[in-house]
Structures are given as C-alpha cells and as structure tokens.
C-alpha cells in the first residue's frame, strides 16, 4: 500500500520525496505544496493542529508566483469600500475561506492570524466556512492578511453575501428563541399536568388543581403569544391571498384550546389542555426550524461560491499607466491590454493587433485575429500582442453585462413547479375544516360538553404536519448526501424537478470537452519516429503563448531556436541548426499539403518540404461517453457556440443525435424556451458566461466548479470536482428522493385518513391526538434519513 501524505491524506507518488518534522516525528508529504504548508504551520508553533484535527486537510496548491500580485488589488481603496466597514483605524471584513474541513482548521486560522501585528479581532465560523476580521488598517494591509492565510493552505476571499442571507440569519435566530421558549415551557407544563393526570401526587384537592391550572395558564401564555405567533401571521397571510395553508387549522386549533382553557380556569369548570398545546407548538416548531436551517445553510454555501475577484484594467493617462478598476472606466478613455490579460470593457482597437479568445462569451474556442479599428468585447482574453483600446461603452453597458442581464430576466420567467404536497394540502385543509365544523354541530346534539374537544382533537390529529414534512425532510437528507459527494445544490426543489427531466441540453466547450487543444494524431509519411517531430514542434512553440503551443508543452524541446517569429493567425517559424522550420496552418506553408494529411489542421515544414501534419482537437472529458450512454432514456441535445464541423464530430464521437452549432446566448435561450413550450422539463449543463442565460431559464441547471462565476450564480447545482459522472449519481439520488417523498406522503395521508374517524367518533382526546401527530411526523423524518446512506 502506498504511503499517505501526512497533510492531505492522499497517496504519495513513488517518485516524490518530501519530508519535514512534525510533532517530533519525520513525516512524508505528497507534494512540495503540502510540505511547505506543514513547514509553515510547524514554524509558527501551531503543530498542535495535527493533534486536534479530525479530518485531513485539502491538498495544498503549489505556490503561485503571481498570487501576491493578484492579492494586491485588494488593497485598492475603491474595492475596500465595498466590503470593508471602517471606524477610524479599525477595519472590519467578512471573508469566505475554502479548505476548512474540521474544527481544528478554525483554531489554526485564528492562531495564525493572531500572530500578525495589527489584527484586532478574528472569529472563524467553521460551519459556514467564513471568518470575520477586524484589523488596524494603518499597520496592516488586507493583501498581507490574505497571503498569511494562503501560507497555511487555505484560500480566503472577500465575498458578496446573498441579499436574503441577512434576513435568513435574523429568522434563524428568531426561530431558535421561539423554539427554546416553547421547549422550556413545555417541560414545565408537562411536569405539572402529568402528575395530575396519573395521580402521582396522591389525592389532589380541587384548590390545588385550580392552582396548577393557573400556573399552567401563566406558563402557556408566552408560548401562545410569542412562540406560536408565526403560525397566526402565516395563516393571516394565506387567508388574505384567499388560500388555505396548513397554518389555518393550526391557528384554529391553538385558538380554541387556549381560549377554552382560559375560561375553564377562570370559571373553575371543565377540562384544560395546556400541556398538549405547548407540546403541539414545540413539535411544529422543531420541524419548521429543521427545514429553515437547511435552507439557510444552502444559501450560505452558494454565497461562498461567489468569491469576488474584481476585474482590473490598465488606464493610459498621458505618459502614465495606472491600474484601475474596470467598472470605473469611462467612454473615450484609453486602456492598455497586454498578452494574457482580459479585455476589461467593450472598445475599439486604436493601436496594435492581437488574437482574442472569446470562448467565455461565445463558446467558440479558436482564436480570432483583431486589428486596428476592430471592436473587442469585455470578457475576451487577449492571447497574443499588445492592444491599446478606446472605451466605447462603460462596463454597465458592455456585452458581458448584457448577457448577465439576459440571465436575470430568464431567471424571473423560469417555470416553477408547484410541489405536490403544497397543492394537495390546500384541499386537505379545507376538507379538515369542514369535517371539524360538521362534527362539532353533530356532537352538540349528542353531548354538548364534548363537542368542542372533539373538534380540537380532529384539528390536531389531522394536522397535515407529517404531510408538510414529507417533502422538505426527504429533500434536505438527499441534499446532505449529495453535498458529501461533492455536489452542491443551491436550490432544494431542484432535486424534485430532476426526477421529471426528459430533455437534456449539453454545452460543448469546457463541459463535454476540457476546453484546451490536445494533440490527437500525427501523420508523417517519412517513417521516422513521431517523437522526433514532436520535439521539433515543441522547440519552436516554446516561445509562443498561443493555445496550440500548450498542446506541445508535454514534450521536451532539445533544439535551440534562433530568429523566432510569429505571424498572427497563421503560425510560427524559427531557425534550427541553420534550417528554417515553419509550423502553422495550411495557408502558412510554402508547399502543397499532401493528400494523406488533409485531415490535419497544423503542419510542420522544413526547407525541403512538409515534414508532417498534426491533428489538434479539444479533448473530450474521459467520462463523456459513459455518461451519454447512461442518459439514453432522455432526449439529449448538444448546444454549442462553436462551428458546425467541430460540433458534429464531437456529437458523433459521443453518440448524440441532436446537435446545434453556432448558437449565440440568445439562440441558446430560444432553443430551451422552445423545448419548454413543448412541455419538456429541461436540464441544462454548461459552464461559460454564454451559458448563463440558458442555465437560468432551464428548469434545472448544472455547472462545473471550474465554470465561470456567471454560470455558477445562475445554476442550481454545482459539480465541485468537475466530474461529469456525478450526473448519474444526481439522477439516482433524485429518483430515490422521489420515491421517499411518495412514501412519506402516502404514510401521512394514510395516517390522517385512519385517525379521522376515531377523532370524529370522540374516541380521541386532544393529548392523544398530539402524540399521534408527533409519532406520525417522526416516522416521516426517520424514513427520510435513510436517504443519507
């Protein structure tokens, strides 16, 4: 068995040999990254972390040289304003931290930061994977703090909390208070009344009983007025919009029980059910709280995904080059875009030429050459050449922003499937209210003293509590299960909808393919080993930053190249041992391309003719074929912004019959809407900015962890480890979840139908009804937890 890395617990590749001393023993590590992190932890005297932790840490990334530079932009004042609250010298910020796996991580980060001079207060929240930080902004810069966290293997970024999150948090606290109060009071009232019920105190005289009633009333009143207030508000809201929600019968039952209890106590006659009332409220609140906190957690997790990395630009101000934020740029300003940088805003090239990668915007992956006078779009990547751009539209009016606006619109028109339980409980509630009224009238004729309690028992026993729990409990268990498998669900009911999906749309670049060129074939007529040509090509391409060059990275480049030249959109050339070699497109060659090489797209020539041809394609992700096979029962569609021949070949390789090429974000949106108009339930899988709107429009959407921020913000499900095979697991769990929901609903209805005649006949007193209701809810919850496995 191979040795495991002491830091991250992964297998150590045999050729690696990294060691350091931790806790007095020599430990081995899988990579220089993990070793450096462990070193940093030990050197700071924090090695107790390894003592405390209950989980392995994430594998540390290799040290990036550009990291410090990247973090530097967080020192810009205009960025700080958005996230940081400042009082005099003290600044406060919320950070999202990835890599936190157990409580010891929180300890480690706090201790590590506490050592920095200038840190005033630091608190790490392990369950939400966040930290709040107060520091002295005269002594310390934010970038220093962030790089200090990077050193021990965590990644911290400022983030934008979702708008609802503050409300969620407030509600969560209110829930806890109501729940706590109801719980404590239930215990007290139960203690008094159980004694009375079962004669534990021996004979109790009427006066003492009366005293107990008054105490119970006193203790129940806060539960009734404070803890249960949410039910009344929700019932009122429902009635005002002319619907009967579950809270209507609850409110009626609570009201009757309490008021009649008050009369009985005051007049010293009749029965009181304060203990049942308290317990009823307590149990209801437990289920509501569980449901709410599951949603709160999902909201936190999805906000953590939206790490904020602002786009910067280099502004040309006379002779000076100033780094500024992209969103502060104005029309007519000049911006410099170097090779490898993102074009920050829409504009016109006024100087220079370059090759742009617009994959993020169009999905098309080949480079496009742009010259002076051409328009460039924000969000495209400049791969080659230096451009001076005149801004034609500020960021709010850029194409990029328009795509994100399209996404917001699509989000608001997204079809919503009303959940089965909600529809059903509508009718159920009306029926229960009717039956309760009728039984009351009938019982008035039979035994007027019992009539009220029969009615209350009916309302409590048939409380559709188990019915209300049926869906959320199953969903939250299934979501927890998926979370542990690396699938993040941002919207709980997405799972319910997945079970209905019959039309699947797949994006090509970056989703089914890896989104980079790979060498798939080499045709050389001269019978020499291929490796000879690979090395020649690699030697020339090592000076180029074109995506094609990266395909040759894996080969050695033993030859010295002089006089390297690159011609935009055609290819590269250079001298090796005095001979001129050219590598590039067919039009770049000085000779006729032989017939045998016609399938190739890149050629290598020397002075004496074409040596060989290479076929470079965007490699398919390994699990693609198996995935498509497993999706046979659905209508699978490939929707890509790329040109037709490429899309067709990918579709053929994977066995997809329906494919659409050269689709703009609007076209894609239209395609999805058409499918929806034909009553298909659409699942969309995509990753680019151009997929943002479709992901928002589709009934359910899935994106990859490596996808663009825009895609992540509109998708319902994120595959954190980029493994497409997880799709099958999602489908499987969604199907299991659906069965569980059906079972739950079946049980809840069955129980209610069974108990109703008993309650109508007056065989059920309110306290039995409460116990029956809670047992039936409990069975539903226990059944749901089986989804965790």
């Amino acid at each position, binding site marked *: 068995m191979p040795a495991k890395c002491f830091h991250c617990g992964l297998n150590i590749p045999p050729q690696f040999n990294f060691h350091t001393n931790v806790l007095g023993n020599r430990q081995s590590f899988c990579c220089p990254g993990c070793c450096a992190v462990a070193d940093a932890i030990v050197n700071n005297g924090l090695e107790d972390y390894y003592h405390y932790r209950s989980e392995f840490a994430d594998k540390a990334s290799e040290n990036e040289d550009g990291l410090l530079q990247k973090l530097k932009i967080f020192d810009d004042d205009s960025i700080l304003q958005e996230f940081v609250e400042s009082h005099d010298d003290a600044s406060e910020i919320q950070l999202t931290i990835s890599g936190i796996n157990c409580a010891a991580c929180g300890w480690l980060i706090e201790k590590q930061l506490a050592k920095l001079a200038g840190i005033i207060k630091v608190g790490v929240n392990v369950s939400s994977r966040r930290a709040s930080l107060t520091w002295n902004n005269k002594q310390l810069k934010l970038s220093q703090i962030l790089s200090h966290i990077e050193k021990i293997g965590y990644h911290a970024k400022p983030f934008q909390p979702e708008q609802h999150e503050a409300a969620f948090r407030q509600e969560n606290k209110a829930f806890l*208070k109501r729940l*706590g109060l109801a719980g*404590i009071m239930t215990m007290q009232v139960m203690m008094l009344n159980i004694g009375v019920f079962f004669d534990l105190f021996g004979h109790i005289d009427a006066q003492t009983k009366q005293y107990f009633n008054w105490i119970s009333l006193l203790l129940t009143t806060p539960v009734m007025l404070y803890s249960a207030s949410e039910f009344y508000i929700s019932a009122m809201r429902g009635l005002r919009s002319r619907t009967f929600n579950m809270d209507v019968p609850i409110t009626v039952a609570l009201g009757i029980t309490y008021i009649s209890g008050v009369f009985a106590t005051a007049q010293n006659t009749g029965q009181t059910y304060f203990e049942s009332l308290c317990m009823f409220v307590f149990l209801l609140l437990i289920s509501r709280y569980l449901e709410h906190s599951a949603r709160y957690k999902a909201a936190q997790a999805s906000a953590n995904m939206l790490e904020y990395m602002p786009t910067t630009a280099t502004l040309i101000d006379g002779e000076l080059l100033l780094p500024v934020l992209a969103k502060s740029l104005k029309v007519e300003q000049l911006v410099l875009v170097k090779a490898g940088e993102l074009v920050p805003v829409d504009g016109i090239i006024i100087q220079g030429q370059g090759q742009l990668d617009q994959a993020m915007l169009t999905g098309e992956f080949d480079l496009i050459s742009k010259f002076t006078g051409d328009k460039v779009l924000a969000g495209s990547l400049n791969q080659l050449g230096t451009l001076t751009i005149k801004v034609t539209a500020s960021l709010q009016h850029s194409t990029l922003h328009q795509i994100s606006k399209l996404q917001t619109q699509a989000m608001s028109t997204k079809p919503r499937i009303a959940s089965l339980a909600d529809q059903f409980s509508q009718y159920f509630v009306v029926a229960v209210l009717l039956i309760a009224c009728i039984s009351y009238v009938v019982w008035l004729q039979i035994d007027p003293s019992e009539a009220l309690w029969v009615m209350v028992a009916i309302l409590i026993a048939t409380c559709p509590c188990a019915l209300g729990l049926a869906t959320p409990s199953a969903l939250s268990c299934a979501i927890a299960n998926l979370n542990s498998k690396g699938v993040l669900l941002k919207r709980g009911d997405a799972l319910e909808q997945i079970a209905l999906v019959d039309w699947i749309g797949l994006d090509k670049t970056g989703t089914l393919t890896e989104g980079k060129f790979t060498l798939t074939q080499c045709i050389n007529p001269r019978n020499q080993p291929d490796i000879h040509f690979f090395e020649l090509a690699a030697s020339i391409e090592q000076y180029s930053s074109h995506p094609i060059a990266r395909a040759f990275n894996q080969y050695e480049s033993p030859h010295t190249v002089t006089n390297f030249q690159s011609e935009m959109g055609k290819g590269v050339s250079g001298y090796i041992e005095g001979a001129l070699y050219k590598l590039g497109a067919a039009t770049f060659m000085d000779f006729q391309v032989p017939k045998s090489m016609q399938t190739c797209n890149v050629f290598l020539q020397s002075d004496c003719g074409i040596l060989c041809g290479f076929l470079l394609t965007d490699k398919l992700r390994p699990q693609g074929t198996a995935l498509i096979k497993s999706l046979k029962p659905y209508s699978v569609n490939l929707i890509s912004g790329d040109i037709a021949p490429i899309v067709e070949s990918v579709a053929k390789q994977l066995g997809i019959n329906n494919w659409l090429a050269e689709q703009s974000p609007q076209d894609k949106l239209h395609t999805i809407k058409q499918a929806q108009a034909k009553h298909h339930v659409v699942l969309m899988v995509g990753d680019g900015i151009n997929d943002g709107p479709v992901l928002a429009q589709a009934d359910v959407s899935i994106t990859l962890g490596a996808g663009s921020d825009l895609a992540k913000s509109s998708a319902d499900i994120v595959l954190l480890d980029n493994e497409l095979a997880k799709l099958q697991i999602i489908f499987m769990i969604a199907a299991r979840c659906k069965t569980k929901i059906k079972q739950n609903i079946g049980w809840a209805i069955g129980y209610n139908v069974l108990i109703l005649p008993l309650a109508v006949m007056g065989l059920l007193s309110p306290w039995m009804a409460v116990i029956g209701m809670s047992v039936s809810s409990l069975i539903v919850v226990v059944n749901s937890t089986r989804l965790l496995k």
Partner: protein
Amino acid sequence: MSSIYVLIPLAILLVSIAIGVFFWAVKSNQFEDLERHGSSILFDDDLPKKTPKTQSQKQSPLNKSDE
C-alpha cells in the same frame, strides 16, 4: 402540600432566568457555529508566544481534558 405554593413560583423564577440566559446566548451568536465550539474546549488557547514547543506542552490539551 403547602410548600408547592412557594416552590412553584420559585421554579418559575428560575425558568425565567434560564430563558433570559438562552435569549442572551442566541443574541450573542453562540448558536451560529455548533461544529466549532463543541470542540474548542479541547484546544489549547494560550500557546507559548515565541519559544518552540516542548514535549510536555504538547501533551497539555490531553491532560486538561482528562482532569
């Protein structure tokens, strides 16, 4: 039996204090992170400032929890 006329009001008083403490705990974010603070008592809070750790100090968290 007459003692209950004193004891029960006393119990109610204690319960109201308990509820007050609970509300205060919720308000001061004590229930925000249940994963972390459950085990934070086991972690050593006062690490030595500069000197590297000695063997006996390493054991300290375990000893503490034994006591």
